[in-house]
């Protein structure tokens, strides 16, 4: 129980309606965010979370969802933008309609929102890079599995990772390809790399599923023990990164914050006119085989 034990007690009987527009439910990270948000929202009896809308990774759809929340005059609007630019205009519309907006994880190109809560993708990349430096003190060959190339987290994680490993010139990125955040794609690409490059020392997957997909490919040809796998996201689900670290499949991962707990807290604060930070950047928790069991217990939501 790490939730805020101080349950907000308010005099008004009113129930406040919260709408949450998710960009893509079907990413494990975002699915976890949804679950957590529902979990933490339940802790505030005066907040009612409408069914979460899913834009299926399509900005146009998400604009429609945001607009429909505006039409319903929700009391708080939470948005995880699929893309900054397309969502800017509807968030300005919400602002014009005096609806408080909490932006999660990805920014928008306007300041007209109540609060932004997010992690730092460059930092996540850097942490992965620093871990790589430690795992490969004598240098080595690194391959990188990228998310959708035009996605901002991809760009930032890539930037942070490369910046960090630049500290050791003997570490070389010998290949990088787009696996679109997906596990089977990563498996396929890794298989090709394995037949192509005799020596791969470390695999950096920009999210855990890609790192695990690469792990599957490598363990299939019995090479998994000869290389290290680093992921990002660190979800506390049975199929997630923390467990994978615990089981030794991944050498390391980051818990990239889902922001759900803070979002629920902020929503509560906002409806009661308490002040919130305009920008809140959350830290990154490193997951190593040592702390993995504890972290899993801490973050796991299921029974």
């Amino acid at each position, binding site marked *: 129980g790490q939730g805020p034990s101080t349950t907000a007690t308010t005099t008004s009987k009113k129930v406040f309606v919260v709408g949450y527009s998710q960009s893509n439910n079907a990413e494990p990270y975002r699915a976890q965010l949804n679950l957590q948000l529902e979990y933490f929202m339940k802790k505030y009896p005066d907040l009612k979370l409408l069914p979460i809308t899913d834009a299926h990774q399509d900005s146009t759809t998400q604009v429609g969802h945001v607009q429909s929340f505006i039409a*319903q005059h929700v009391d708080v609007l939470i948005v995880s933008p699929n*893309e900054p*630019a397309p969502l800017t205009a509807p968030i300005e519309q919400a602002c014009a309609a005096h609806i408080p907006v909490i932006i999660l994880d990805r920014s928008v190109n306007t300041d007209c929102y109540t609060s932004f809560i997010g992690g730092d993708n460059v930092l996540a990349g850097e942490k992965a890079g620093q871990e790589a430096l430690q795992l490969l003190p004598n240098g080595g060959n690194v391959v990188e599995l990228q998310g959708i190339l035009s996605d901002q987290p991809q760009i930032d994680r890539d930037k942070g990772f490369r910046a960090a490993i630049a500290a050791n010139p003997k570490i070389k990125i010998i290949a990088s390809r787009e696996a679109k955040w997906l596990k089977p794609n990563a498996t396929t690409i890794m298989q090709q790399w394995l037949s192509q490059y005799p020596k791969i020392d470390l695999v950096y997957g920009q999210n855990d599923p890609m790192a695990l997909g690469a792990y599957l490919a490598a363990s299939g040809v019995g090479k998994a023990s000869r290389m290290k796998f680093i992921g990002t996201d660190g979800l506390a689900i049975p199929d997630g990164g923390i467990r994978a670290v615990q089981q030794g499949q991944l050498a390391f991962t980051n818990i990239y914050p889902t922001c759900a707990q803070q979002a629920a807290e902020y929503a509560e604060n906002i409806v009661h006119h308490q002040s919130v930070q305009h920008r809140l950047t959350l830290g990154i928790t490193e997951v190593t085989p040592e702390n993995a069991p504890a972290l899993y217990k801490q973050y796991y939501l299921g029974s």
Partner: protein
Amino acid sequence: MKADLGNPAVQETSIPPSRRERLKRILAILGSLQGYIGLILIVGFGILSKGSIFWDGVNLTNAIGDFSSRGILAVGETLVILIAGIDLSVGSLLGFCSMTAALLLTTRGLNPIEIILISMIVGATFGFLNGFATSWLRIQSFIVTLAMLSIARGLDRQLSNNVSVGTQTVMANGQLTPNSSAFQLLGTPGHNLFTFTLPFVGQVGIYYPVLAFLVVCIIFQFILSRTRFGRHIYAVGGNPTAARLSGVNVTLITIAVFTLSGMLAGFAGPIDAAYSASADPLAGQSFELDAIAAAVIGGASLVGGKGTIIGTLVGALILTLLDNVMGLNAVSDNWQLVIKGLIVIVAVVLQRPGVFTSVLVYIRPIVTRIRSERRESPESE
């Protein structure tokens, strides 16, 4: 006797003629509304469940505006489907053209009209290649346009270097450049072309994507029904051999239709860019499915030769308003997928001509029986 519907064997004489006339008139009206029944039900449900929130100028404008770039693609797609082809590349072409538009705006500083024209030319060029490969190389349009889907997307991503390009260029004083500001009129939410005040109704805004979509529909409905080119399109789709022997230049029509489809994708590109205030290298992905779905739900047959733009418009409205109504009613997302699938099937079944009359054939005897029973009981009449 002649215009009589349904089963002739039933005791029709038991219904008095005046009533029969009335019944017939009601049936005729129902029959003419037949093609819209799916749409009517969705709108009706929207109004019933959400009242003025749904039936509100802004909400409807938003809903149609969201779909309008896909709607414009659907018009081009309808033409292609009419000649028994399919165009899977429209989504990618829209993506490429929205990127072109954004780059023309930010790097060349062109004005929206120039951008639209160039974008249409770019789209038409791709479309021409589709048509050329389909008709000259005689490859199935499915393969040609699937290849083009891949090619255009690759070029789009290469052109943009995988980074989305914002369309809001700011001058030194922090204001948007005039062209960038004008570009917003092409679809950035909340930016109307112009607004005016109507008595009773209040302020009305004309939102470019909606206007553009409707105008495209009108123009192409006109072309299809009132020009030789339109007739030839139907002929090519209905029977290419017969069309050729009737003096139709089948190759030319094929190329023209694919070119138009590409051109419309080019026309929709800037709208999409303005709507998102940026061109995403992934913009338009899987829009082709929506475009095809709108056409097919609207009655176009993939075998060719059958379909109208009005039908496609209805199909597009069904798709977008269904999403809107479900969104307003806060249906959970996973169930939305399920419900959407079911409703699309129901809508298509309902708007098939003759569903009512064929249902009536079964219902009629029952109705008649009930009536005659009523007549026998004393309280009636």
